[in-house]
């Protein structure tokens, strides 16, 4: 070996391995770039309203019988959630950081990473109790039975959802944490939304209290507040509405509920919880009527639509007034 070779090898041995982007980031980027490439080459024409990577990944057919291809730890196949509703393109990060279409996925195990495409959404029954929802363009890694890691996008968690949503244990709620690059978000009996963009974390609270153990600063938010972390700055607390546009996507992910034999009162409670609004009856008689009115069938529509349809047939009137839905008898 020449002196130059020897010197070179010594030099290289002093260096650290080059940093690499993580698997999830690589998978998401690969599909985004692939979609753009396919649009450019005309190989697969995209629809205007579809985001790139989502469209691209539609050509990747999910083969669920080959379950082992998915990233699941060999040692612990811990089921942490089950899917109650999903729409739009859903992906799972597989080996070699490739996104695989997974629209028919039913259960989630610790270690798996789920990515939603444009105009997508998912509702999960969290195994330890609670309803977990993902908005479109969201990437989340299921770490273990009490935490997820939010890479990007928007998630919502309701620790005590309506009993009308089947398959969720509301009696024995375990802990649930959302980890992010800005810190760990945990809650005390609540409904809250966590949104992570490239340079900002926003935690919005509908009910209860949420604490964030931030990378640089801690913070807490109560009902009607939003906690905002940006860079290394101190968190900011803002007053927000608990309903409206920012929350609308949650209604779209509401799982189907079975109302057969349940009262209109229970149905309205579910509506209120999903829409973030209080329910008020015109008087006590009206409330008693709602308790006695028995519904039939299942509700597959999102809450706002279901409210219109069901109330029309129940001879009840209703109106939105800011954060409240007022219910009265039709005249």
């Amino acid at each position, binding site marked *: 070996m020449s*002196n*130059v*070779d020897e*010197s*070179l*090898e*010594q*030099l*290289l*041995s*002093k*260096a*650290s*391995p*080059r*940093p*690499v*982007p*993580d698997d999830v*980031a*690589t998978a*998401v*980027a*690969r599909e*985004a*770039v*692939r979609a*753009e*490439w*396919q649009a*450019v*080459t*005309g*190989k697969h024409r995209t629809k205007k309203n579809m985001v*790139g990577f989502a469209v691209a990944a539609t050509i990747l057919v999910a083969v669920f019988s080959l379950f082992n291809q998915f990233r699941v730890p060999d040692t612990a196949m811990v089921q942490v959630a089950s899917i109650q509703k999903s729409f739009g393109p859903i992906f799972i990060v597989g080996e070699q950081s490739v996104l695989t279409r997974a629209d028919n996925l039913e259960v989630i195990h610790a270690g798996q990473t789920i990515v939603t495409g444009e105009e997508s959404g998912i509702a999960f029954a969290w195994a330890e109790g609670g309803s977990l929802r993902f908005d479109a363009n969201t990437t989340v890694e299921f770490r273990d039975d009490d935490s997820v890691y939010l890479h*990007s996008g928007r998630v919502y968690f309701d620790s005590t959802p309506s009993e009308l949503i089947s398959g969720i244990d509301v009696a024995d709620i375990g802990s649930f944490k959302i980890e992010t*690059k800005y810190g760990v978000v945990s809650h005390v009996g609540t409904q809250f939304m966590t949104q992570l963009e*490239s*340079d900002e974390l926003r935690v919005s609270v509908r009910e209860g209290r949420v604490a964030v153990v931030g990378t640089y600063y801690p913070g807490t938010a109560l009902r009607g507040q939003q906690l905002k972390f940006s860079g290394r700055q101190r968190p900011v607390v803002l007053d927000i509405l608990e309903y409206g546009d920012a929350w609308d996507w949650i209604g779209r992910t509401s799982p189907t509920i079975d109302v057969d034999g349940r009262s209109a009162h229970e149905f309205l409670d579910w509506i209120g919880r999903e829409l973030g609004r209080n329910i008020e009856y015109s008087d006590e008689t009206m409330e008693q009527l709602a308790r006695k009115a028995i519904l039939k069938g299942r509700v597959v529509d999102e809450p706002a639509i279901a409210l219109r349809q069901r109330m029309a047939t129940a001879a009840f009137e209703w109106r939105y007034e800011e954060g409240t839905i007022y219910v009265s008898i039709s005249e």
Partner: protein
Amino acid sequence: MAVYLDDKKLIKQLLAGDEPAFERFFEENFARLYRFALVRLSDDPDAAREVAQITLTRAVRKLRTYRAESALFTWLCAICRNETSDWLAKQGRYREHIVLVEDYPEVQAAVDSLQLPEQMSPEHHYRRVELLRLIQVTLDKLPPRYGDVLEWKYIEGHSIKEISGKLDIGDEATQSLLARAKRAFSDVYSTLSNGLDQQLNELAKS
């Protein structure tokens, strides 16, 4: 003027919708662009990932404009540099001063500098840190396979057999690839570390 025929061929295949060409294009460039952006974005991995992704997305839109007069990765770096600036501007951050190095010192000099005693001046400390960083920069400047084999062999300590397995080639071919990679590394690293010395000299004079 040099024409980068291999890169030109790859672009042609990409424009024809060739899937393996896309895989190669992405595999060879995403992680390198990520690192290129990372050092310019204060080591923010999320920002670097976003900028690298935007860069490749922009690049595929402009594939037809690539004339192979520079290496494909150089062309991508130019796009990445613009995207990094845009990203910083969008985030309201000030652009950080980026140290760029060019020119040629001896590899042995670099090794010597890495073996300085612990009591070193700030200038020496800076030089040592920069020289180590330049190793990574150099690996990224090489053809992708060259950078990978050098890293696997000398930084991560894999055997020839293991590397042959990774690349799905014979041991002799791996040895030959390593020899070529070392020569290329030596040339590029000399250029970069010499540039660093020039920069330090200018700083010392000012």
